[in-house]
């Protein structure tokens, strides 16, 4: 494991680290990917980390994250373990094809790469680069924007492993693929997981992506995923985050959609110290659709930032964004969503909605719902509200004899329910529904899904305190 030394800028540190470990980072990857890596590192060195003057980072400062000295695990020294012994997914009756990343490295029992009988390939990215270099080369770096100051370039410079999925033509995967991303380290750890998902024509995939931390140690996860949906491909994507208060998670998800493909994304932040989810969906061909839903339930001094860009390049496409947040204590939430309608994207239908409830005076909500439209025959709208529970609804419930606490919990549950109801996998929806309910009652802990029973610390319970409403 490597140490970062102090007294030089974080950018410079990272760049030096890159140069020192270049050979390790490259591993067995194809030449073109090494070139991409080099270019990304140079871009990062030039543009640096986003700072408070960077438009989409005005309310999300990375500064506190740099107070820790991070270790890096470039050679996969995480102790291998049997994942089932320390972690079981809480969605008991959800039958999934489950894969795990530990500290950014793909964990496997038999083989790092599995090829199912229908041709689907699931496995670790680093192995995929060895076995299917052509496939990886064709897509790697084709969706991510490496030019802007930001963490996409940093990830591209440093990534080593992650999830690789290839779904061939006409294949519909019935079982969802579940990726469990675990960080477990005694030292502060910085990781750069990278995921690549390729769906050929007419394929169908459900991907559940869960972020967890097993310890309360500081970690900084800068992940990036690129997803390519070919014609008529359907992807149902879930991102569930239930992390410790000292973890920082940055997710950069890029989706490129071809003709009549359909993306549904759900991003649920139940706990997390510092979370920034960025989604870029590019609707490249006509009749594609993208639906992005999100729910953030944050308290104490958690920070949840959702940054979305739906880029309508082609005509006759549809997109919808629904993001909701409930904020307690000193929690902060940022929503910045942009609908971009390019010149020829006529007949676009695009909607965006962001609603927040603040429970305390110290919580803060910042919303920037943006429309940038260059075509005339479109219907676009956006709305953002920040407020409290509806007093009339409250009165109604109270007049029916419910206690104030129960009434408030019901209303908050209903507020969150609008997003939860959009989850289409039934067991998952029920489970999430239950988790949200527990979360609102203050009963959900980050140790909930964990069977490790780390003896060092008490389970952390975050309360959404109904009496403060």
């Amino acid at each position, binding site marked *: 494991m490597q140490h970062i030394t102090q007294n030089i800028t974080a950018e410079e540190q990272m760049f030096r680290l890159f140069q020192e470990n270049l050979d390790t980072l490259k591993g067995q990857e194809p030449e073109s990917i090494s070139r991409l890596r080099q270019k990304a590192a140079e871009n990062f060195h030039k543009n640096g980390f986003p700072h408070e003057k960077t438009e989409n980072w005005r309310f999300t400062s990375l500064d506190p994250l740099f107070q820790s000295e991070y270790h890096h695990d470039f050679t996969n020294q995480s102790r291998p373990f049997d994942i089932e012994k320390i972690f079981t997914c809480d969605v008991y009756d959800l039958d999934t094809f489950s894969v795990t990343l530990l500290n950014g490295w793909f964990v496997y029992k038999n083989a790092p790469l599995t090829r199912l009988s229908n041709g689907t390939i699931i496995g670790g990215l680093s192995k995929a680069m060895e076995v299917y270099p052509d496939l990886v080369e064709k897509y790697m770096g084709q969706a991510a924007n490496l030019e802007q100051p930001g963490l996409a370039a940093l990830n591209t410079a440093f990534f080593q492993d992650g999830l690789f999925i290839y779904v061939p033509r006409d294949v519909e995967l019935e079982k969802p693929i579940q990726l469990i991303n675990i960080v477990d380290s005694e030292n502060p750890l910085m990781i750069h997981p990278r995921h690549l998902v390729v769906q050929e024509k007419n394929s169908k995939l459900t991907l559940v992506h869960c972020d967890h931390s097993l310890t309360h140690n500081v970690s900084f996860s800068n992940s990036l995923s690129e997803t390519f949906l070919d014609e008529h491909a359907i992807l149902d994507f879930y991102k569930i985050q239930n992390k410790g208060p000292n973890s920082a998670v940055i997710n950069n998800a890029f989706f490129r959609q071809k003709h009549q493909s359909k993306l549904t994304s759900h991003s649920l932040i139940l706990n997390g110290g510092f979370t920034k989810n960025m989604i870029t969906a590019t609707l490249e061909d006509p009749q594609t659709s993208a639906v992005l839903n999100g729910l953030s339930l944050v308290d104490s001094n958690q920070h949840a930032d959702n940054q979305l860009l739906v880029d309508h390049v082609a005509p006759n496409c549809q997109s919808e964004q629904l993001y909701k947040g409930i904020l307690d204590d000193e929690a902060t939430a940022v929503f910045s969503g942009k609908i971009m309608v390019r010149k020829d994207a006529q007949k676009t239908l695009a909607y965006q909605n962001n609603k927040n409830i603040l429970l305390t005076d110290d919580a803060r909500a910042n919303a920037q719902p943006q429309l940038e439209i260059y075509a005339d025959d*479109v219907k676009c709208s956006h709305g*953002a*509200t920040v407020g409290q529970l509806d007093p009339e609804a409250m009165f109604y419930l109270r007049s029916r004899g419910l206690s104030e606490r129960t009434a408030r919990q019901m209303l908050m549950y209903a507020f969150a329910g609008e997003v939860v109801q959009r989850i289409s996998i039934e067991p998952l929806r029920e489970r999430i529904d239950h988790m949200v309910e527990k979360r609102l009652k203050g009963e959900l802990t980050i140790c909930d899904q964990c069977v490790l029973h780390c003896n060092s610390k008490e389970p952390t319970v975050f309360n959404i305190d109904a009496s403060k409403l």
Partner: protein
Amino acid sequence: MAEEKNNEILDELTQSEYKYGFYTDIEMDQAPKGLTEDTIRFISAKKKEPEFMLEFRLKAFRHWKTLKEPKWAHVHYPPIDFQDIIYYSAPRKKPKYESLDQVDPELLETFDKLGIPLGEQKKLAGVAVDAVMDSVSVGTTFQKTLEEKGIIFCSFSEALQKHPELVKKHIGTVVPYTDNFYAALNSAVFSDGSFCYIPKGVRCPLELSTYFRINAANTGQFERTLIVAEEGSYVSYMEGCTAPMRDENQLHAAIVEIISKKDAEVKYATVQNWWPGDKKGKGGVYNFVTKRGLCEGENAKISWTQVETGSAITWKYPSVILMGDNSVGEFYSVAVTNNMQQADTGTKMIHLGKNTKSTIISKGISAGLSNNSYRGLVKTTRRAENARNFSQCDSLLLGDRCGAHTFPYVEVGNKSSIVEHEATTSKISEDQLFYCLQRGIDMEGAIGLIVNGYAKEVLSKLPMEFAVEAQKLLSISLEGSVG
């Protein structure tokens, strides 16, 4: 078929020439080109300003030199050479007139062409006019009526001579010279403007109005308006603009400061119709303005209403700082862009006091190759309990090559405030058009009707005289085109 007609109409609009483009030949008293401390001393000396004003200007200038031009707006223009601008020009013949008959007839003719009734008609209309032509106030009427009430309404230079203490007390309190690049520039070189002071408890009996007009070529116009409404007073202030057709870009960087004290109310309305440049985007006025109001005391109220049809580039955000408890801020705007025009406009509502309320209604209409952006900030601080905001920003697109953008910023810092923002972007509804056509209204009439209906919510907030002018302007701006 309907589309063809539509295109025809569109072409017609986009080709319609600027109707108020003419140029008056009056001898000018100009400062040499460029900007140095000497230019500023020249301006200050020329205007026989008190010492504090010169110091203010020099401080602003020194600060300005440390600043960089901001680039964040959604507008594009070639770099401005600030040394290639004449920072002061005044009509040379400037005797003090007793009546309008003595005024330079050429000047009067200019006003006539603009349709400004700077004569007896105004009295009947109940409007006092302080006409600013190239920075220097030329004629002021109805001073008497105002004087009786103790209202001061004069040019900024005059105010500096007669009421320096009032100016000194209030200038730069709402828009400090450190505020932004163009505010610093204006603070350093502002040539003239209007000053308005309403004493305690006085309700201004007239609608105060000023007509600004850029005249000399290559002259940046840097006016400064300061409106102070003392406790319990009320004033409605109007400003309108037209500029002659010139080929070089003219920079216009004004500052408007409004101070509304306890229980006072200020209504500020503006119709801006400066030359937008020709349809290839050549020429036109750059309108980079800082407008801000401060609701200083309890129950204070400030309302901005604007109709923006002119200027090659409009870049302004009339804002309200709601400092007093229960104070109210309003912003009503119609912005029309056509051809190559660009507008990045909106408002900022900063809620500091308790129970403060703000309303934002913004209607954008873009046609041709233009880009029209709404950019707004609604911020409630922790202390601003029960703050309430409602924002509605609609955009209408006419033609498939224009752009309409919305960039609202909502920042909420306490649990009891309610902030709502909604925006829609669409083109003219086919159903509405069909309905009108089917009732025998021609395409142009139908579009005009729909657009006027669309903007009505804002137009109805304008004072009567302005509402008529604004409606005409809207029709002219979109004439034939799409309305």
